[in-house]
């Protein structure tokens, strides 16, 4: 295969990881919301923790974005 084509295919494949990270982040906020609707008084205390979880899940998706950017612009 042409190495340039392989590079672009690889960058596209790396972006799949971002979609999977989106599922993770959506899962966290969806569960936070369903928990918050069941017990609104406890919601505010868990707000920070929700964002920590979302940040950690999102971080892994961002690693795949970085892989894609490195393939496109650096490698």
């Amino acid at each position: 295969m042409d190495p340039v084509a392989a590079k672009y295919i690889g960058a596209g494949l790396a972006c799949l990881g971002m979609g999977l990270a989106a599922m993770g982040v959506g899962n966290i906020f969806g569960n936070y919301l369903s928990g918050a609707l069941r017990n609104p008084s406890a919601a505010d205390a868990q707000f920070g923790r929700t964002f920590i979880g979302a940040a950690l899940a999102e971080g892994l998706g961002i690693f795949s974005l970085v892989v894609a950017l490195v393939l496109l612009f650096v490698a």
Partner: protein
Amino acid sequence: MANPIEQFEIKTLVPLGKIGGTEIAFTNSALFMVGAVALITIGLTAATARRSLVPGRFQAGAEVLYEFVAKTLREAAGHDAMQFFPLVFSLFTFVLTCNLLGLVPGFFTVTSHVIVTASLALLVIGTVIVAGFVKHGFHFLGLFVPSGVPFWLLPFMIVIEVVSFLSRPISLSLRLFANMLAGHIALKVFAGFIVSLGALAASGGVTGILGVAGATLPLAMAVGLTALEFLVAALQAYVFTILTCIYLHDALHPGH
């Protein structure tokens, strides 16, 4: 169409000479960093210049900002972490101001460069390591030894904990950098669609009607994305701050 990466280009404004083979210069990045610091300093000084018991509009804003960061730090790292409040508050306001300044059209986004966010992340991790060793000596290394783990599992757990600790500055810096970079690239790509489809609309005829419809859609998307970027700018500054607080918690209270 304009290159969406072009906006991140570092331009030399005032060359300051060379150290070794490396050029030292006052760049547009440095200009916006100085601008952000000046904006924060002048804004907060002006807001608290005439302190009154019943705060005015600007003083109330400054107090809300102070209380927000203080509450985040106290909840995530405990009351004794307030000695690090100046660091955490500076980080939050600097990252927030740089993110928001970058959203002004034509302005340079300082935090979209990994070298800037990596420096901030290394500052945080360096503080955590130094504070941990100063406060707890070699007990700080207890951070890497989870309690309640069977002894045959310990070597693996220690390796995992060390790797997870070392990946913290990487993920902390990459998260902020990649969010700002990706957001600004997306904005620029949609803005490019407006221009190219707008040119089609200007050509007139049947394709012109298609072009009008085609250019309106990305324009609406660009407006929506800009609103989303404001959310992301504030959110990423908050995430950077709260993760800093959690890492400081590890330095002050090592051991699981």
